[in-house]
């Protein structure tokens, strides 16, 4: 479990004691005055910020606004603790809280709500903003947990060839279309295998990963390549699609041609020999260089698998 540092801004020690009894393992800090909390939470933001709506010195709404208007703190869930009577005095269309609960508190409900807020924040933070697929933190966590459990798996690193030249000619939003399409192909192909431990993540840009059982991975690579190669021409303008390459002028004024985008996949296997996700990533990067030598879509499987 990640470290849990919870801040409570409230005058009520009873409230603190109740909350402490719900999450005894968390590190609790209490601030009686809102003003004194500000410097603390800016310097070392907590993993959860609970604000009592009835503060003596400043308005709780102001505190929320102050905290949430800074992009670097936005991922920290902020929960407002209200009484039923003052619920209607808060404009939730504008107040950027993540949740609220009512006093007197119901321990079971508050416990679930706080857990939900923490998990939701973690998901939202890690998800790739474009594809909404799990990002790096989730990817590493997933790989490491499979390694720790000594599970056999195949880990595939996927990226696109000539994506940059496509982006340069057509612009970012057209590039995003291609990434969305690629994500859909990978997700649907992997899901079709229906394996319990399968996984798809988006590292960023044109880099994706997926995990499948070792005996399924080669077929998945073939299916992804086949789908990608047949669909990607739709994303070019008619002339480029017709001549099956793009023609653009570089900064030196030279006319250059680039082939249509292709997809490269490097697959690493774990039969219990891996100890750390970094090893897998390292092997995959080396394999990728081999896959990239082929201008067409291709996949490379880690040869060492047979030696195991």
């Amino acid at each position, binding site marked *: 479990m990640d470290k849990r540092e919870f801040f409570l801004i409230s005058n009520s020690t009873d409230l603190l004691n109740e909350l402490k009894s719900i999450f005894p393992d968390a590190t609790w800090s209490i601030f009686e005055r809102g003003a004194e909390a500000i410097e603390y939470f800016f310097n070392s933001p907590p993993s959860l910020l609970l604000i009592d709506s009835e503060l003596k010195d400043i308005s709780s709404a102001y505190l929320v606004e102050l905290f949430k208007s800074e992009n670097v703190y936005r991922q920290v869930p902020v929960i407002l603790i209200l009484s039923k009577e003052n619920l209607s005095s808060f404009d939730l269309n504008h107040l950027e809280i993540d949740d609220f609960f009512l006093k007197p508190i119901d321990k079971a409900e508050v416990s679930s709500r706080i857990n939900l807020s923490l998990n939701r924040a973690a998901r939202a933070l890690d998800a790739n903003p*474009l594809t909404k697929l799990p990002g790096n933190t989730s990817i590493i966590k997933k790989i490491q947990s499979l390694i720790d459990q000594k599970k056999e798996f195949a880990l595939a690193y996927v990226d696109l060839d000539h994506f940059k030249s496509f982006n340069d000619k057509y612009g970012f939003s057209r590039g*995003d*279309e*291609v990434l*969305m*399409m690629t994500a*859909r*192909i990978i*997700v*649907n*192909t992997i*899901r*079709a295998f*229906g394996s319990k431990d399968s996984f798809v993540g988006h590292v960023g840009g044109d880099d994706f990963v997926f995990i499948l059982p070792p005996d399924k991975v080669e077929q998945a690579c073939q299916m992804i390549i086949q*789908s990608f190669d*047949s*669909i990607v021409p*739709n*994303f070019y303008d*008619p002339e480029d699609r*017709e001549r099956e390459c793009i023609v653009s002028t570089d900064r030196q004024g030279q006319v250059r041609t680039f082939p249509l985008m292709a997809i490269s996949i490097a697959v690493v296997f774990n039969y219990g020999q891996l100890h750390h996700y970094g090893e897998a990533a390292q092997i995959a990067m080396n394999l990728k260089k081999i896959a990239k030598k082929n201008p067409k879509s291709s996949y490379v499987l880690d040869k060492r698998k047979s030696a195991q």
Partner: protein
Amino acid sequence: MQDLRLESKKKVLAIKDLPTLPQVLAEVSKLLEDPTVSTEKVAQVISKDQVLSAKVLKMVNSPIYGFPRRISTIQHALVLLGFNVIKGLIISTSVFDIMNQSMIGLWEHSLGCALASSTIAKKVKLKDPEEYAVAGLLHDLGKVIALVQLPELKAEVEELVKKEDIPYYVAEKKVMGFGHDRINAWLADYWHLPLRLREGLAWHHQVQSAQHYPEMAAVVHLADFITRLFEVGFAGDDNVSKLDARAFKILKLTPNLFEEILDELVDNFLELSDFKPED
């Protein structure tokens, strides 16, 4: 007339559900029970029903997926939507009781036109003949929409066709001020369908107006003509449509090649009759 047109357009675009062949729905549901079924197989069955095909393309081209106007074949749509979404689509598709004889005729005509379109595209060596099949399949979708959303006008159109013995789309224009080709264009825009398909759907009665993909309009125009010539299905009137010579020019189609196409289609249409929607 302008008011009627705007009013009708609103009604057309407000379409919630469309009639689908119950047999096709059942067949797709059955295929999807097998988790290892191939997308090719499912695509093949969905391609027998223009409404289900249109729904699939509408969904995959919707902005939520992030690549509007890019996908024009059922096979690609299935790869990108995944079976999960298709299952949901099948569950939410209702079977109408308005599937009367003339509707079934329209389904057959559409299927015939899809087949003719891909045959022509292959013969004149166009790339991606599958896309031409989709345009052929969907070319009369506007008629289905009109039937569901504008039933009063539809009855008037049918009466006029009988009384004056004129082509269906001419009668549509007389009664409504616009034809099913116009409805097709509205839908193609509203559903973010690829421009290539839009040109086939909107200009199959007016080949010269297709600015971007004239060969698409020409292929569907020709396919519509041939399907009527062979009396495959029923498109709303008994006329063989007027053949526009420009279509031949656009496709660089020689009389010899045209004859080859007709010969091939005689056999293909026969095979098609294996699939009778009313079975």
